[in-house]
């Protein structure tokens, strides 16, 4: 029982998602809900083996489904997983080459309500990253637990990179100061497309604007869009930041560290307007 002898402080700081390469440790850490799946037949929990033909079908089908109903987040997720292999390899290599990114790959932190200390974050000063993130969650009425599981990526480390990318998406909203309305989501997608090169982001970036009205389109193409692309290309890889250890860092400092300019236009979240 390794976990019993670990000092509590380490347990609280480290939120380890263990891999199938260490099965005995995984079984110790398995939550009650997962216990029935301790003998999953994939590379990781939730993994489903697919042939290339099935992946192609999935990519086409999920693309059509996501276009017809943009609220089908699971379809957007499936599209990302089936089309993103090369981009994920690229991201994983960038993470390996960065010291902080390498730490993330080994420690595998997860951003979930159960791993966030919300009370502590609420007590942080205004302007700090943690406080602004919490404000973002409250203003837009979202939760970090709503991310879809990774199912169709056939490498366990790449699956983690995909998962990390999904979990960092909300933090990106905070970093860029974008709300979760359509315009904000499109701006974040443009940034992500420039940063990660995931085909799903590119598709979202191209097709998202089709749903915007004229004034928002203008704002997108004149100020927000170029800003997002410029920063996406120039910023440090956002997956390389160990956000869980930087809650008390000032948001402006963090932006400067990542080479992200503050947004040219302040957009208001849906609740405020």
């Amino acid at each position: 029982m390794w976990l019993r002898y670990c000092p509590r402080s380490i347990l609280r700081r480290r939120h380890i998602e263990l891999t199938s390469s260490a099965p005995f440790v995984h079984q110790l850490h398995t939550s009650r809900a997962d216990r029935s799946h301790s003998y999953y037949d994939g590379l990781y929990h939730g993994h489903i083996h697919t042939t290339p033909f099935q992946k192609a079908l999935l990519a086409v089908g999920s693309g059509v489904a996501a276009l017809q109903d943009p609220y089908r987040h699971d379809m957007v997720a499936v599209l990302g997983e089936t089309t993103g292999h090369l981009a994920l390899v690229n991201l994983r290599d960038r993470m390996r080459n960065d010291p902080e990114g390498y730490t993330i790959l080994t420690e595998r932190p997860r951003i979930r309500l159960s791993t966030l200390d919300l009370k502590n974050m609420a007590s942080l000063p205004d302007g700090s990253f943690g406080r602004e993130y919490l404000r973002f969650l409250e203003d837009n009425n979202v939760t970090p637990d709503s991310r879809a599981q990774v199912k169709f990526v056939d490498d366990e480390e790449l699956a983690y990179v995909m998962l990390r990318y999904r979990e960092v998406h909300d933090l990106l909203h905070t970093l860029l100061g974008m709300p979760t309305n359509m315009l904000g989501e499109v701006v974040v997608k443009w940034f992500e497309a420039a940063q990660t090169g995931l085909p799903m982001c590119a598709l979202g970036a191209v097709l998202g604007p089709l749903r915007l009205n004229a004034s928002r389109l203008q704002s997108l193409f004149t100020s927000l869009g170029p800003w997002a692309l410029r920063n996406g290309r120039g910023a440090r890889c956002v997956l390389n930041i160990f956000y869980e250890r930087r809650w008390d860092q000032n948001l402006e400092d963090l932006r400067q560290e990542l080479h992200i300019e503050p947004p040219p236009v302040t957009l208001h979240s849906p609740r405020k307007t």
Partner: protein
Amino acid sequence: MAASVRTFVRSLSRKNAGFSAVLRLSDCRWFSGKAEERSTHFGFETVSETEKASKVYKVFENVAQKYDVMNDAMSLGIHRLWKDALLHVMHPQPGARLLDVAGGTGDIAFRFLEYVRSQQERQQRRAVLLGQTPSWQDVSDRYPDGGGAPESAVVVCDINKEMLKVGRQRADSRGVTTGLSWVVGDAEELPFNDDQFDLYTIAFGIRNVTHIDQALKEALRVLKPGGRFLCLEFSKVTNPVLERLYDVYSFQVIPVLGEVIAGDWKSYQYLVESIRKFPDQEEFKGLMEDSGFFCVQYFNLTGGVVALHSGFKL
């Protein structure tokens, strides 16, 4: 004597499900082991028998909302033809009582009601055309205290409440109010008395039952003497070329459709695997004969993709 022992066993088994496997008269298996320890298949996976029932329940709970859409997508609409064929073979007459087990969303029940109503209209038109003297039906109808012919009715029985809920919503939207009732029940232990129904159907449900022989025995029990048992189920394809195509389609395309349309890959993977585990046409015919059905015959539809089995209780 046999009946009283049977009811005694049934009352015991209701109180203590764990020992029911041991006491079941039909099997006469004197194990000391309980049902939970006997294993069965769940698709290609091996699970304990009690686990299978709850896993199947969960599958249908998940797919209930998109069940009809998925049926159309997976079978390219052909499932409607299969169900129509079932009704044509059944050829129910007005006044028949049907029990549709695993009838969930009500496809068979709605078709039955429509068929019977059209049969009734046909009979009335024929009577008018031939200008016959009033039948006993008309004579009894004119008596002051009624005495009309028994109305045809269908009871839809399903173990899964979500599926029944979807069925009820469909009935409401179609405006079907009479002649239909919805009952939660287990095919292996039906909540009906003996000799109740003229017709018993189970369409694409019997492969999900843990003990098929038990479901067949229950079917025999609730049918009236002369009643007919009809089972529509996926079966073995006879043509080898079609079989290869069918396999490729089942394993490559159907789970993808499940993921894209219903957001549930695993339930549809279970579906195609459970089809492979079900006995083929001749084996199922043998099971029916063993359970006590007579004149058992089967019809292959779509080259054996689906088989329609029929038997009588005499």
